[in-house]
């Protein structure tokens, strides 16, 4: 191969990497898990959430947690997905893409048609963020926690956020 040919081949490779490299992650599916938990000050704690209770207590401050619902879905990029989280509320996701190992998405939490939260987030791949509805334990007497996990992976559906829960969608109950 001549020097010019080698240079052209390298330039072509560089161009191909620029064009296709960052988009590989976007081509992989995005697995979304939405878990709804009721937090209360007293009462029994859901056995499925027992292992997670210390962490939830750090987040919300309540002592008891009950699993209301869990949904897992493989979603398409740049498609809006709606998750019913009970109580007339829904979590609307619009996954936009991957950047810097983060899942970029727009998340809206609606109550009926009322928009409670509208945010653009970059969540570390495989990470979980939480939406709390109500007041934390310092000033309230109960809250709903919505745990949102997003993973961009070529492998199977993500490990469940909550230990000992079924990977299947569980029944929703109104908070």
């Amino acid at each position: 191969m001549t020097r010019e040919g080698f240079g052209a081949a390298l330039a072509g490779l560089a161009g191909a990497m620029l064009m296709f490299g960052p988009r590989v992650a976007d081509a992989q599916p995005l697995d979304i898990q939405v878990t709804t938990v009721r937090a209360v000050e007293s009462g029994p704690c859901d056995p499925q959430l027992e292992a997670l209770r210390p962490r939830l207590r750090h987040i919300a401050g309540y002592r008891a947690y009950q699993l209301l619902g869990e949904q897992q879905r493989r979603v398409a990029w740049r498609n809006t997905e709606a998750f019913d989280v009970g109580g007339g509320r829904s979590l609307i996701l619009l996954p936009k893409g991957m950047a810097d190992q983060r899942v970029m998405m727009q998340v809206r939490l609606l109550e009926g048609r009322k928009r409670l939260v509208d945010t653009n987030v970059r969540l570390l791949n495989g990470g979980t963020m939480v939406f709390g509805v109500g007041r934390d334990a310092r000033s309230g007497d109960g809250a709903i926690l919505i745990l949102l996990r997003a993973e961009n992976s070529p492998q199977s559906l993500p490990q469940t956020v909550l230990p000992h829960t079924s990977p299947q969608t569980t029944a929703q109950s109104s908070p």
Partner: protein
Amino acid sequence: MDCQDVEQLLDGFVDTELSPPELLDVARHAATCSACDGAIRGLTDLRGELTRLLEDEVRQLDLSRLWPAVAATIPASRPRRAGIAALPRQLPVWGAVMALAASLLLWLGTSVQPPSTPKPSPAGERVASRSRVQSPNHAEIDRLSGKDIAVRREPKSGTTVIWVNHTVEDANP
């Protein structure tokens, strides 16, 4: 357009250097004027003859010894260039290598670059993604809107929590 105009534009017409309207005007006139038509044909033939003559002259030139003579003088006459001065001659390879390196940096940068600074959030909103140590649940909030909302980060796991301070009755009927 009359014959005098055509005479002035004759060279340009034969060389097709005139503007399209002028070309059209000359052609229209030549179609109705045998003198101008003859002049155009004569000039065209003359140029053709000249071209053929030149080509014959070039074909008769013996250049077989030219390139060996040039090649023999190149090592002696080419000044040695070093460093950056030598780059232009090697530009095809160097340029490609640099492009490849830049592309690699860009490509890898999407996975190893530190997170960009979050945009300033509107008044009344807190952005909870300031920590440099990133937890598995690290989240950055680029935009946030809503009523009575607060953003908190759980210290141990770094989990971001967006609280909607909704009425307790609605949240826990």
